[in-house]
């Protein structure tokens, strides 16, 4: 699960749990004060009822009192009302409706003021009433015990409270999760970019002005990126400089060799030829190394021109066919859809050329290297397939590494130096394309996919 979701859910769960615990604790330990408050208010209410009853019986007589008491009985919440005299005789109400009230009535008679009592399922209140004839009575009320009202449930304000709490909790958790995970997400993006070869990636600025471990991590990432960048650029510069410097002695070697040939006797001629071959090989290697170093150095400044890829493929294939025929091999273009791409002609040409020459090198004599260019889903796809037996599956991904050799002995014999495919890969990548290798029909097939040019591009 995503870290963001995890943090969000955890915090939300924590808040929910906290609310439940608080409610539980309040219910358990705060009943006493709540209860005494309730008793006080019941007592006040009872005094008011009995006071009113006394006034009514004095002003309007017994009938008036009966009407008042009936009205009192019909009020909400549901209740029973009795009026009892000092002998326990009920003057109003059902005697059976209120039980176990004898003690309370006795207390009220003796104290002369309102008293309350509560049992499990009911609350009793009693208060004295004086009749005009001097007779003393006690007004007894019995309420059903109201279930304690839930804080969140069962009433409109409860739902509002619940909704508000949930909303606030959700928003807070969301913001918190965002605050914690957004720098991690940025770090992750930066790591990806760095891994993709964008060595100038830095992240501290994007993470912003926070002062915590994540900001420190971002700072450390930048330090690391800087170090990697300087290491890699210096290594690339070294490759480039070494190759560049090697050319001067090589140029002199070539000339000296030719002078030696002018002056040589027939005996030394074959060795001089050999020196020439080796020097040419060295030369080739250096120029490829330079091309590679340049491609790895700055892939951003690739030239952008509209190119007819079919023409390039046909051209390169024709050249390769010419060269291959000298060794009894052939290159055939099977399909060549019209494809326009945007990029550097030189780079794309060299990419296709390198792959094609590699294929020609490995395909057996009297066999054909198939070249096809097809267009699908906005991609121009060049496929080059030889019949050279392919490459072990686990080595396919390594093919594009510089100087990587699949079969040491075989490679030497065929004269490769292990840079062609590396150059092709860099060139294709510089065009934001992909190059892949797979084994097909007893041979290696290299597939180059490039974005086809959009209609209005350039």
């Amino acid at each position: 699960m995503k870290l963001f979701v995890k943090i969000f859910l955890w915090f939300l769960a924590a808040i929910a749990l906290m609310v439940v615990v608080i409610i539980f604790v309040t219910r358990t330990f705060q009943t006493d004060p709540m209860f005494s408050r309730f008793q006080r208010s019941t007592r006040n209410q009872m005094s008011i009822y009995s006071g009113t009853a006394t006034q009514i019986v004095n002003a309007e007589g017994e009938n008036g009192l009966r009407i008042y008491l009936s009205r009192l009985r019909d009020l909400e919440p549901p209740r029973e009302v009795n009026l009892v005299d000092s002998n326990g005789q009920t003057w109003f109400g059902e005697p059976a409706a209120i039980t176990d009230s004898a003690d309370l009535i006795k207390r009220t008679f003796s104290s002369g003021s309102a008293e309350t009592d509560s049992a499990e399922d009911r609350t009793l209140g009693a208060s004295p009433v004086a009749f005009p004839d001097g007779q003393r009575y006690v007004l007894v009320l019995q309420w059903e015990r109201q279930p304690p009202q839930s804080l969140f449930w069962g009433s409109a304000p409860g739902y509002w409270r619940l909704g508000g709490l949930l909303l606030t909790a959700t928003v807070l958790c969301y913001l918190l999760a965002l605050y914690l995970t957004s720098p991690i997400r940025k770090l992750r993006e930066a790591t990806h970019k760095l891994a993709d070869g964008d060595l100038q990636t830095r992240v501290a600025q994007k993470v912003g002005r926070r002062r915590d471990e994540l900001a420190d991590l971002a700072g450390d990432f930048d330090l690391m990126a800087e170090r990697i960048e300087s290491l890699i650029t210096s290594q690339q510069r070294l490759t480039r400089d070494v190759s560049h410097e090697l050319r001067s002695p090589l140029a002199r070697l070539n000339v000296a060799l030719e002078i030696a040939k002018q002056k040589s006797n027939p005996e030394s001629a074959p060795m001089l030829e050999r020196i020439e071959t080796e020097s040419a090989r060295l030369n080739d290697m250096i120029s490829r190394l330079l091309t590679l170093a340049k491609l790895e150095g700055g892939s951003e400044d690739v030239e952008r021109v509209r190119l007819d890829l079919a023409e390039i493929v046909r051209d390169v294939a024709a050249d390769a066919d010419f060269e291959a025929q000298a060794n009894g091999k052939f290159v055939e273009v099977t399909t060549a859809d019209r494809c326009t791409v945007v990029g550097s002609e030189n780079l794309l040409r060299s990419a296709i050329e390198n792959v094609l020459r590699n294929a020609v090198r490995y395909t057996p004599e009297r066999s054909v290297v198939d070249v096809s260019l097809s267009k699908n889903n906005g991609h121009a796809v060049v496929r080059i397939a030889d019949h050279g037996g392919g490459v072990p599956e686990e080595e396919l991904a390594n093919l594009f590494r510089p100087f990587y050799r699949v079969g040491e002995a075989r490679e030497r014999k065929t004269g490769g130096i292990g840079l062609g495919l590396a150059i092709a890969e860099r060139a294709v990548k510089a065009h934001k394309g992909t190059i892949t290798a797979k084994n097909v029909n007893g041979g290696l097939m290299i597939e180059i996919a490039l974005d086809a040019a959009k209609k209005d591009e350039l």
Partner: protein
Amino acid sequence: MDKILIIDDDEELCELVSEYLAVEGFDISTVNDGESGLKMALSGEYDLAILDVMLPKMNGFDVLRNLRLESKLPVLMLTARGDDMERIVGLEIGADDYLPKPFNPRELAARLRAILRRSVPLAEDGDEAHEKLDIDGVQVSSSARIATRDGSEINLTSVEFELLRELLREAGKVVKKEDLSERVLERKLSPYDRSLDMHISNLRKKLGARADGSERIKTIRSVGYIYTVV
């Protein structure tokens, strides 16, 4: 004997090349920096200059640019191997040919001979000497080795001049790449060699398109080129 000026900062290489080319029958002088190289090239004493790109004081491109302001001295550029840009820039600003360094000295000698042969005006009595071609405003005069478009001179290198002449001679017909390479560059067309295409592309730029926007020289893919006739 043809007098050749080598402008290259590698003194040892200059020595060796001088020794080799002396045997091949050239008269060689060498100079090791761009500024004095340009001065000597402008002196008019030489038939051809071999120019390296990386030079102290003034780089090869600047030397060539300055040289072309007042001289048509044939120039062969030594470019860094694997660097297409150097090659293209060199040809664009008026080098007659280029050779990637390190080079094969035999090839150097052959290229020098080819350039020299092209740059020498033809013998007075030859058929070609008085040849004048004129196709829709583009004129080529073999005796003066001058090409003009609507009366004004087009500044062409010797290779470009020869290419234009070959194409004009067979205007309206396809000229094969192989033939152009052999007749103009005096070497066999080898696979992956794109110098002919580059010369043609420079020639195209210098000629400019027709008034209606169409190209004068068209490419016939993997065959050759055609100078179109309207």
